[in-house]
Each structure stands twice: as structure tokens, then as C-alpha cells.
């Protein structure tokens, strides 16, 4: 059994030539052993092949990174555009009424009749930017830069009160407090309190003769639609900084109508006449309503 692969052992120099002397064709075998050891190694471009391997390594690595980067970018884009699209809030005031909008940071916007206004709820904390078209009055809470974009120009403030008008080819900004930065086609101006700037068809008109706290168009009336009396009174309390007591009014009354927001005696008188009530002035800031008992 040991001799089974004797030629293999002999080729590997484990046994001598002599032990194979009686093998058939031993001369040829010896020559095979001798000359086969003279055979050359095949050519191999070792360095070049390594270079190619490394190139492929790198492209694979890069591809991997690119894919993951691409995937995350896509994901981020997807989520943010989703969030963006679904958190845009749109307001359009009707031709015959104003609309007030409260922004997430308690900044207040009053839209004049027939105006459009848009902001993004989701990104508000990062980016206080709103878009508008028409006429609007802003009372902006202190904070990061607040930007108003219009088709015509751009207004930037930190926290102040101002009015922007952007209609057709007319762009106008009025500053009621603090200062605002106005950008219009490469032109940049800073407005201080009482100043306003107008661009009409690209022509600039500057003036500084604005007095008053608010634009005159901002409604001086408050409209109520089927509101219970206690709620109407609450609104008045806020508007005039007063206290009104209606506990003694027995009837359940609902109010539909318009009350002035700059004339307290008139507002109270309207309510008296509508509902047959009487009010007693306790002091400058306190009023008590009672049923008007007919004699």
C-alpha cells in the first residue's frame, strides 16, 4: 500500500531514483522530472492587478457612500417637503372684510380687504418668513429676523410695527415703530419710526410724515356674529382694558352686530339699546350691567 503512489513520492524527492529502477519508462520519467522543474512561471502583472483591485475598492467605497448620502438627502428632502407642503398656512381676506392672523410667536397680522397672506407653521421657529400680496399691517414680536416677501420687494425687521402694501406695481412700506429694512430691486433702505417709502413702477418716493399708531384703514370696529353676551363683554374688556360685570343680567342674550373699538360709551350704549339693559359706572374702569326693568 505504501508504494501505491510511489511516483508521487519520487517526484517529491521522498524516495530515490534507485527504488524505481524497475519501473517502466523510468528514463522518460526522469526527464519529465528534470525538465518540468525548468518551466517558467507564467507572467503576472502583480502591481498592475493590485492597482486595479484598489481602483475597484475605491469606486465601490465611493458608490456606497454616495448611495447612503443620496438616500439620506432624498429622505430629508422628502420629509421636509412633505412637512413644508402640509404646514403652509394660507389666508385670503375677502373683498369686503379684514382678517387678522395670529402667528405662532404671537406676532399679529391684519390683512386689509382683498389681500393674501401665507406662512409656514412648521418652520416658524427657524425661519420667520411670510409671503403676502395686497395690504397688511404687522405687529411683530421680538425675535429673529422677520421677513415679509412680496412680488415686488422684501421687508426685514426684528420686532416692530409696520405696514406693507404690494399691489400691481405699487410697493409701499410704512414704519410705525422701531426700524425696518426695505429691499426693492437691489435698492436697500432703512426706515425709522414715522417714515415710509413707496415705489411706484420702480420710481422711489420717500417721505417721513406718518403720525399715529396704526394705519387708518385698520378697522376701528369689532364685528360679532351670534356671540353670547358674556363673550362680547370679554372682548370689550380686552379692547378697552376695563372690567364689565354682567352677572345681574338674567336673560340669555346673543349679539350680532358691529361695535366700535375706539369709542367705549358708544359701544356700551349700543348694547343697552339692543337689549334693554342699564349699566352703572363704578369707576373709570368698571361697569355693571343690570336688566332694564320697565316701569
Amino acid at each position: 500500500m505504501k508504494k501505491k503512489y510511489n511516483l508521487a513520492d519520487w517526484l517529491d524527492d521522498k524516495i530515490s531514483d534507485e527504488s524505481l529502477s524497475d519501473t517502466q519508462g523510468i528514463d522518460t520519467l526522469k526527464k519529465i522530472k528534470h525538465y518540468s522543474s525548468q518551466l517558467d512561471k507564467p507572467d503576472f502583472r502583480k502591481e498592475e492587478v493590485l492597482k486595479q483591485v484598489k481602483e475597484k475598492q475605491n469606486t465601490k467605497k465611493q458608490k456606497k457612500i454616495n448611495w447612503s448620502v443620496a438616500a439620506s438627502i432624498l429622505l430629508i428632502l422628502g420629509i421636509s417637503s412633505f412637512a413644508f407642503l402640509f404646514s403652509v398656512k394660507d389666508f385670503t381676506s375677502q373683498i369686503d372684510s379684514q382678517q387678522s392672523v395670529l402667528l405662532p410667536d404671537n406676532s399679529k397680522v391684519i390683512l386689509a380687504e382683498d389681500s393674501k397672506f401665507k406662512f409656514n407653521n412648521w418652520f416658524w421657529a427657524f425661519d420667520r418668513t411670510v409671503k403676502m400680496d395686497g395690504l397688511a399691517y404687522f405687529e411683530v414680536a421680538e425675535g429673529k429676523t422677520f421677513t415679509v416677501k412680496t412680488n415686488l420687494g422684501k421687508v426685514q425687521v426684528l420686532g416692530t410695527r409696520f405696514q406693507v402694501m404690494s399691489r400691481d406695481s405699487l410697493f409701499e412700506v410704512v414704519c410705525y415703530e422701531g426700524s425696518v429694512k426695505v429691499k426693492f430691486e437691489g435698492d436697500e433702505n432703512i426706515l425709522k419710526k414715522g417714515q415710509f417709502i413707496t415705489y411706484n413702477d420702480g420710481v422711489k418716493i420717500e417721505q417721513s410724515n406718518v403720525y399715529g399708531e396704526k394705519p387708518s384703514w385698520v378697522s376701528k370696529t369689532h364685528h360679532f356674529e351670534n356671540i353670547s353676551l358674556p363673550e362680547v363683554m370679554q372682548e370689550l374688556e380686552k379692547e378697552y382694558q376695563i372690567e364689565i360685570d354682567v352677572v345681574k343680567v338674567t336673560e340669555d342674550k346673543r349679539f350680532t352686530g358691529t361695535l366700535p373699538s375706539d369709542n367705549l360709551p358708544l359701544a356700551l350704549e349700543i348694547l343697552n339699546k339692543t337689549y334693554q339693559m342699564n349699566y352703572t359706572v363704578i369707576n373709570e374702569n368698571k361697569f355693571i350691567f343690570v336688566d332694564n326693568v320697565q316701569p
Partner: protein
Amino acid sequence: MEKELIDNVCEEKIFERIYDKHSEVINNYFYYKFGDKELAEESVQEAFIKLWENCKKIPFAKAKSYLYTVANNLSINRYKHKKVVLNYANTVPQRTEDRQSPDYKMEEQEFKIKLQKAIQNLSEKQRIAFLLHRIDEKSYKEIADILNISVKAVEKRMQKALESLREKIDAFK
């Protein structure tokens, strides 16, 4: 301990060391198999790229056997075998050169050509085992590792290869 932590072949230096040590034999293995230089180099590339792709899973000690496993698997799908063309080294000193007669030289040349042809006509398995031993000077144990077979099986292949070569060469006469 520290060595164990980085014990995979992803490290470029380690990878290059493995390449340096094994690429040539792997290339020769492919060449003995296919008889195609370019195909052999392509296959070497492929085997090492596979090693790289799986480098995290392969400890240094397993790299060699991984490469040969890949090599054995790769060759399954390659059918265009060519004739293996091997040349004789010029640098090998010819013994008794001075006393060689022209006849002897002719005879030697003839034999060398016969041997080349006989090797081309060996079965693939015998040829690979035989040439890894004769050219790459691999031991039977190493050949067994490369081909993933037992040493006995290698011995059998060598035996058969020698018998086959002798028969073929004697038949040419």
C-alpha cells in the same frame, strides 16, 4: 488583545500583505486552469475584490483559505479554456553543457516540446496539481490546501499526472 480587535483584512496594509503573499500563486493556479493570461488576472482581481468586500468577516488567518475557496468557485463558471503555454527558463544552468553534442541538444529540445504538449493534454485537475508542484514549488500539503482536497488525493493526482505524461511522451516517438 489589541491584535484581536483589528484582526480582519480591511486594514490596507494587511490586505496588501495578503496580496503580496498569495496573488501570484492564485494567478498561476488560474493560468494552469484556463491557459488564459488575461482571464487569470481578471480572476485574481475578482478574488481579491471579493476578499475586500467581505474583509470585516475574515480574520487574517482565514484569508488564504477564503481566497482559494473563492478561486475554486470562480472557475466553475469559466468554460473557455485555452491551451496552457509554458516556457522554459533560460536562466537554469544546463548541466554538462560543455560536453553536449548537437545531437544531444536537438534531442533535449524535442523532449521539451513533447513535455509542453503532454502538459497541455493533461486533465485540468492533474495539470494544476502537477504545475503547482513543479513550477510554484508547493508541497503536497500546500497543494491540498489550495485545492481543498486531501494530501492523499494530491498524491494520486501527481501519480496519475506522471503516468499520463510518460505515456504521452513515449507515444510521440
